[in-house]
């Protein structure tokens, strides 16, 4: 059974027509997928993972690509493989959705925003399985239950935007699985999600594979996920397959240099055990200065006390505030000079809001923000303008936070212009120096954001934040969207800057392995509150709060030998942070479990 290939890709070559002539998406890629196995395809961004899978569905053609060579043999179940590369459109329509299901990279955009979940789910069923509306609905609810969506009936009538990211991704999965395809292609189904949801989805797919014998082609660049999921692994690099093997072979004895560097770049939870201070990662093929731990100092740079930020929910005839989103609720912490405080927690728990409140990009409702002894909340607009010289922010989404219409040099130069720090050739020089600082070639200065990869874009965002020589940088999920190798580079860069310039970071992330690597202090947030805060070592080795413990257990480990079973996972749905106007939450009370390690004793809702 396992040996029987359900799909064989042979010598695939895909070309794209562009303004500058044809370019190649993948060249000469061959691999098999066998039924009942999970094949993981790994590789950097742009290495051709998506293109390969889209070719199998013959969907590249709609994106402007052509299959220029190779065979795509698929067995539709009768043992007589057909070459999909030459199949008729009618036949392809039969296969798509029916025999091959596909989960797309971005759950946020993969669903049609104007149709209900139910409608989108039943569509395929009615076409391929010729079901009546009622049967299809019944089946759809059944699949939603299978993917563990609570209140499946109600979801059927909801629109995609009414679901959280994790739920949306599960709907996409349900959609792909609806017709019980024989091959399921999952293109980075979890990259954009946070750990807890990711863990849930991975578990779900694994279970489905086991239950139905579906072959899964899993595309990712996250080695930890690969380790958890894969039976076999294909490594792609620059449009080529560079290595193929079982998951143990790849992890234990990588042959190709690229695979090796990839594995080296993966931060692994627990690596930092026993080291009190963060230190840069060891990367392959990159000349690095000697790795030293970063100590920082214990001078307080930023002192936050009882910070509260709420967003009004307006309603009624006169648009009065009727309720509030309690995004940040009674949060206190300190950031020390030259050190990094990390905030972790699941999506929507208020991490970004907390970061933004510090810079007064959103106005906090209460609390004290003391930066170098000055109360930020008391500043008038002109003083605030000045204060921002010392505090900068790197935004969550590197693509969204850069103006698509502006050249990179102008974007980096903008803060300098705003504060009239430099002009003319001096400005040019400083911008160039910043590019050097973040290891970007100067030739990129005239480029536009879309001409850059995600990692490069994030470096621009860092350069922009550095331009003013700030003392504190709020790095909001600065590396979450990047692939491992780039992520490692950026992390190293940040740490290098911290070591050189004595910068402080407020590092916001949901990736525990990364947090472990970079932070001195860690705060865990849940539903607007800090449920646990303390030195990184202590929090990681001795998680005291129930939520922290659950979070830790959800983190996938980049080691195929330490697979987690589904039973370890135990998540509760997150309660709503919206409360009516009169609601006064209890103040946060902490208990010091160890020196400097505090745990919330008030009920946080978990």
């Amino acid at each position, binding site marked *: 059974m396992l040996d029987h290939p359900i799909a064989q890709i042979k010598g695939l070559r895909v070309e794209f027509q562009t303004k500058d002539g044809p370019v190649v998406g993948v060249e000469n890629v061959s691999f098999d997928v066998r039924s009942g196995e999970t094949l993981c395809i790994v590789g950097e961004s742009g290495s051709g993972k998506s293109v390969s899978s889209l070719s199998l569905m013959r969907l590249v053609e709609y994106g402007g690509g052509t299959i220029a060579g190779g065979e795509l043999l698929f067995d539709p179940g009768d043992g007589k493989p057909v070459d999909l590369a030459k199949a008729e459109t009618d036949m392809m329509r039969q296969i798509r959705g029916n025999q091959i299901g596909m989960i797309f990279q971005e759950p946020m955009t993969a669903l049609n925003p104007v149709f209900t979940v139910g409608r989108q789910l039943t569509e395929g069923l009615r076409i391929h399985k010729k079901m009546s509306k009622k049967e299809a609905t019944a089946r759809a609810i059944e699949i939603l239950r299978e993917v563990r969506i609570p209140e499946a009936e109600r979801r059927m009538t909801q629109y995609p*935007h009414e679901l959280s990211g994790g739920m949306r991704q599960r709907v996409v999965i349900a*959609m792909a699985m609806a017709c019980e395809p024989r091959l399921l292609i999952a293109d980075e189904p979890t990259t954009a999600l946070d750990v807890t949801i990711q863990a849930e989805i991975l578990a779900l797919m694994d279970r489905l594979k086991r239950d139905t014998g579906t072959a899964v082609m899993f595309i990712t660049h996250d080695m930890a996920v690969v380790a958890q999921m894969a039976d076999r692994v294909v490594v792609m690099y620059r449009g080529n397959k560079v290595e193929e093997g079982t998951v143990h072979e790849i992890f234990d004895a990588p042959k190709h240099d690229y695979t090796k560097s990839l594995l080296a770049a993966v931060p692994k939870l627990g690596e930092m055990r026993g080291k009190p201070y963060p230190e840069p990662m060891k990367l392959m093929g990159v000349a690095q200065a000697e790795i030293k731990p970063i100590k920082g100092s214990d001078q307080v740079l930023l002192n936050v006390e009882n910070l509260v930020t709420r967003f009004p929910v307006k309603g009624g005839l006169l648009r009065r505030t009727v309720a509030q989103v309690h995004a940040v609720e009674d949060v206190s912490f300190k950031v020390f000079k030259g050190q990094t405080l990390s905030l972790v927690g699941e999506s929507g728990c208020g991490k970004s809001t907390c970061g933004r409140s510090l810079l007064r990009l959103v106005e906090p409702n209460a609390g004290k923000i003391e930066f170098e002894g000055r109360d930020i909340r008391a500043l008038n607009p002109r003083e605030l303008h000045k204060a921002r010289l010392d505090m900068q922010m790197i935004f969550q989404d590197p693509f969204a936070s850069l103006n698509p219409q502006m050249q990179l040099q102008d974007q980096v130069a903008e803060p300098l212009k705003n504060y009239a720090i430099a002009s003319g050739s001096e400005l040019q020089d400083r911008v160039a120096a910043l590019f050097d600082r973040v290891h970007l070639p100067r030739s990129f200065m005239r480029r536009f954001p879309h001409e850059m990869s995600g990692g490069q874009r994030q470096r621009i965002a860092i350069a922009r934040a550095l331009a003013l020589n700030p003392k504190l940088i709020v790095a909001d999920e600065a590396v979450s969207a990047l692939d491992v190798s780039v992520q490692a580079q950026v992390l190293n860069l940040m740490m290098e800057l911290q070591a050189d310039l004595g910068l402080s970071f407020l590092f916001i992330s949901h990736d525990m392995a990364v947090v472990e690597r970079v932070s001195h202090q860690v705060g865990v947030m849940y539903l607007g509150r800090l449920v646990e805060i303390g030195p990184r070592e202590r929090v990681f080795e001795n998680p005291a709060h129930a939520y922290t413990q659950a979070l830790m257990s959800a983190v996938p480990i980049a080691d195929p030998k330490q697979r987690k079973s589904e039973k370890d996972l135990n998540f509760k749905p997150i309660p709503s942070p919206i409360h009516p106007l009169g609601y006064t939450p209890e103040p946060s009370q902490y208990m010091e479990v160890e020196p400097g390690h505090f745990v919330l004793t008030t009920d946080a809702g978990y």
Partner: protein
Amino acid sequence: MLTFTIRRLILAVPTLLFISLVIFLLLELAPGDPMAQVPLTVPPEVKEKMRMALGLGEPVHIRFWKWLVQFFWIEPQVLVDHIFGTTFSQGDLRVISWQTRSPVMDIVVQRLPQTLSVVGTAYIVAILIALPIGIYSAYRQYSWFDQLGTFVSMVGFSVPPFFSGVLVIVIFSVQLGWFPSIYDTTLVVNSWESFVKQLQQMVMPVMVLALQITAQLSRFMRASMLDNLNQDYVRTARAKGLGEYVVVMVHVLRNSMIPVVTVIALGIPSIFGGAIITEQVFKVNGIGQLLIGAIQANDLPMVQTLTFIFAVLIVMFNLIADVLYGILDPRIRYD
């Protein structure tokens, strides 16, 4: 959504009152004289007397107040009387046109059918033509069909109706004799022949008007389709094994219609407002013709009332467009 609508409706009242004041002052300031069309043979003293008889002697604020009362208090009563046979409005002075010395609203009601049938039909025809053109041009971007569509719609947009109208009259009425050049507003449709006649006389004005509207709408439709055609969800739909027709005409179209529907809704007031030049060219004598005639004759109560009704429609359909947007796009929530 409901509260949003109600809030906007409440807000619309002061807005409209202000608009009516501005229109009134504007008309007041504008030079012009209701006696302009009285021949020069009538001596000035007599004209002055006639002006007084129209109430022009009274101060501005009194006249505005009178209009407000007449429009907002008496006219609704008349409507109620008309529907329920009551007699609330008896003896009250309604908004009276200076030209015809008859209630403005009666004339408006008289004119509405022809305007609605001609301009409305043109609008519907235009929508029916423009949408498929827009959809297909976008689906086959840069094909010859698309290029031709662009060309025709640009030409259609840039040719003024006083030219295209006369052109079709010369071709179809004078040379070919197919359609009447003058619209018969007294025609009652009660048989097949009269229906055919009605169709015949509507063909040309509808054609001319529809050309312009089509030109604009098809551009919007095309742009909107182009925006949606390469969205991710389209790929998802294809991956489900849906046919091209379903993908384009259900998934893409539904999304692309959102901005287009609001554009269409925003254009609806102009159906009621009539098409000034086209109506004149074909003698449709609808609201547009009424307005331009009233402006030229300086019939202030008529102009004031018509423009105000128009303003009400604009404000209403703005609101309707916003609400439609919210209904069509489930992501939009008005609180």
